[in-house]
């Protein structure tokens, strides 16, 4: 490929126009000094011209002793773009909450300048730091420098994927448990499960501090941990009045949007029927100064979210309605160990735990992991009469 990057990226150049920060500009910045980035730009321009990707089906590459953390990738036009002939990405386990110091970031940049394309994703959609593309022989050096700098690889393949969490108590007043500590502890506890594939398929854990679910746990984590509370919303009447005085239409903007209509506003006093509140967060979101989650904090554990392949996307569903914050870490560990045992034994190849539940049925899954059924697990009981009645040896009914 030629020297002058610009003349070779007529189509991509169009994407340097406009107010939104441009990934093409980023690529060009890197390309100035980095031949991999330069060839990536060239290959991408080719894709834009031909409206088709130019990567071969991924191969398995990695670092010694690890079964994942690297996504192998090879160009299908290596003759044109030899510097991306191999172009493997590394997934690096981000620190809880995606917090950094400038120093830590610079260390990462330096490593990647020496050994890779100089391009990253901050972050991948599972949450990892993505080092976007390098050659096979650079993998081990990157890895060794990363660990020296205190970083480690994240997950890929049939492992526990890098857990992630919302910013939680570090900066949010609503976190009903310490999301960052929980995520960090789990990540440390399961290093082996993250690095060495032993599951039927991937398993994801995401921790959100409240029902706003700022890491989208319910949509994309096999185990979704969502903060909640058990007692009454903490209410500051003076602050409510302040909001009203400042022009907030409490009836329309707060009460009318409450999903259970459990709030009453008489123009002066806000009354919440907390027994009917479903902890949706709306009223708290609108009046953060006046309302807060209760004091008896903890989390709901939900199971089984995933993307559509194969049997259609799933959202996580309630498994344990409430775990007190103090018991959360132990409960999660106990629970996942029972889930992993069962799933590892009975899950089909490439079957997520949510799909396993769909296949064998929730009642059978509960039996298998030793949890009692509670009505909170369902939006409604069954409407079909196809009940598999079970009779115990002694003729007594199983409940």
């Amino acid at each position, binding site marked *: 490929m030629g020297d002058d990057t610009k003349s070779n990226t007529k189509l991509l150049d169009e994407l340097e126009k406009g107010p*939104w920060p*441009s*990934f093409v*500009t980023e690529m060009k910045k890197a390309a100035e000094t980095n031949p991999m980035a330069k060839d990536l730009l060239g290959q991408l321009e080719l894709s834009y011209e031909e409206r088709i990707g130019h990567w071969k089906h991924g191969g398995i590459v990695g670092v010694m002793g690890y079964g994942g953390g690297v996504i192998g990738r090879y160009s299908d036009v290596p003759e044109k773009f030899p510097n991306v002939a191999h172009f493997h990405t590394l997934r690096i386990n981000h620190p809880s909450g995606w917090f950094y110091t400038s120093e830590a970031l610079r260390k990462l940049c330096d490593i990647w300048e020496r050994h890779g394309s100089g391009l990253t994703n901050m972050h991948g959609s599972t949450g990892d730091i993505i080092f976007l593309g390098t050659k096979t022989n650079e993998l081990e050096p990157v890895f060794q420098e990363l660990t020296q700098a205190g970083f480690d690889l994240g997950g890929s393949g049939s492992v526990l994927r890098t857990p992630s969490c919302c910013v939680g*108590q570090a900066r949010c007043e609503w976190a009903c448990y310490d999301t960052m500590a929980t995520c960090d502890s789990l990540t440390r506890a399961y290093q082996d499960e993250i690095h060495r594939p032993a599951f039927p398929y991937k398993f994801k854990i995401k921790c959100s501090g409240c029902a706003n679910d700022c890491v989208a746990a319910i949509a994309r984590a096999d185990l979704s941990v969502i903060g909640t509370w058990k007692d009454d919303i903490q209410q500051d009447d003076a602050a409510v009045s302040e909001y009203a005085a400042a022009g907030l239409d409490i009836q329309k903007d707060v009460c009318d949007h409450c999903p259970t209509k459990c709030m009453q506003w008489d123009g002066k006093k806000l009354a919440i029927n907390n027994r009917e509140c479903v902890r949706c967060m709306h009223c708290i979101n609108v009046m953060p100064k006046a309302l807060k989650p209760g004091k008896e904090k903890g989390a709901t554990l939900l199971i089984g979210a995933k*993307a559509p392949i194969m049997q259609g996307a799933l959202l996580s569903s309630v498994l344990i309605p409430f775990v007190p914050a103090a018991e959360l870490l132990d409960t999660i560990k106990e629970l996942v160990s029972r889930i992993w045992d069962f799933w590892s034994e009975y899950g089909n190849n490439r079957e997520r735990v949510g799909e396993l539940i769909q296949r064998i049925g929730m009642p059978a899954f509960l039996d298998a992991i030793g949890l009692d059924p509670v009505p909170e697990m369902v939006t409604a009981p069954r409407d079909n009469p196809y009940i598999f009645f079970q009779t115990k040896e002694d003729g007594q009914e199983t409940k």
Partner: protein
Amino acid sequence: MSEPAKRITDIGPPPYEKFLHPLIKKNYGKWLYHERPAPGVLCHISETGDKLYTVRAATPRLLSIQTIRMFADLADKYSGGYLRFTSRNNVEFLLDNPDNIEPLKKELLAAGFLVGGTNNSISNIVHTQGWIHCHSAATDASGIVKAVMDALHDHFTESKLPAKLRIALACCLNMCGAVHCSDIAILGVHRKPPKIKRDVLSKVCEIPTLISSCPTGAIRPATFEGKPSVEVIEEQCMYCANCYTVCPAMTLNDPDNDGLSIWVGGKVSNARSAPRFSKLAVPFLPNNPPRWPEVVDAVVNIVDVYARNARKFERMGEWIDRIGWPRFFELTGIEFTRYHIDDFKHAGTTFARSAHLKF
């Protein structure tokens, strides 16, 4: 396999504590409430009386080390060296001194990084690799994101929508990034059954795994030149590419038939209504690089119609709940087709099983 002595493994991520601003450490778990002084700026007030200021800026997610170093420099200058990234790939600077807000904003803007994305705005588009790095991609990711956000950037820098509006993009049905619960999801799709590379199939693929990978059972055993192979019953194929994921010989990428679909009304948060999937709005738009004008127009149109019609605090899906899908199609001018009617597993549960009708 024995490892070299000094090789370190399984250390996990660096402990997050060392990356926390001292003000955060001090007030960890003590935040009382927050205010939103301006788009892209948050102020969190602690029970200790401390105030933490956050300045949020857009990134293209795909960042060069040059830009990351620039962020590091800005952090050193304005936020004690502390910064973070958000779950939607924005960068956040954490400030204890409010006087630093404006100078920081100015520098960010000058460098081309818009400040905003807070409150009822359109935040960054969660997206995936596309032609940059993935073998599966039915379309590019970053290019469409750039084109769409160029058109919608004022919804990032201002907070003028009825509610949050979350856009996501995935370049194939694997839906990395979990776009399936977005207010607007842009999804790369194939429209032709796999072309089988018969010559290599038996060498590179495990046939039983391949057969069982097909959600609709469209793949059947066959032989090719005496070797075990497969065939695809084309009418049963809905182009999901799961076969390709497990077997490189099942290729689907196709410049003319690949393209994009648009889905609307999903959400993740439990605020007000329960989380829910996005639903099909536009079945197919062509792959038209570099700026995908058809996709941009379609998304902008949906955002505009939503912005004009939804009530305060109504997310896209909640608004559609209220007006009904027929009205959504009427207002947006999107054509309702046979593709919109579900015919997968739980299709029956989406049929209109009541006489509730608006005319």
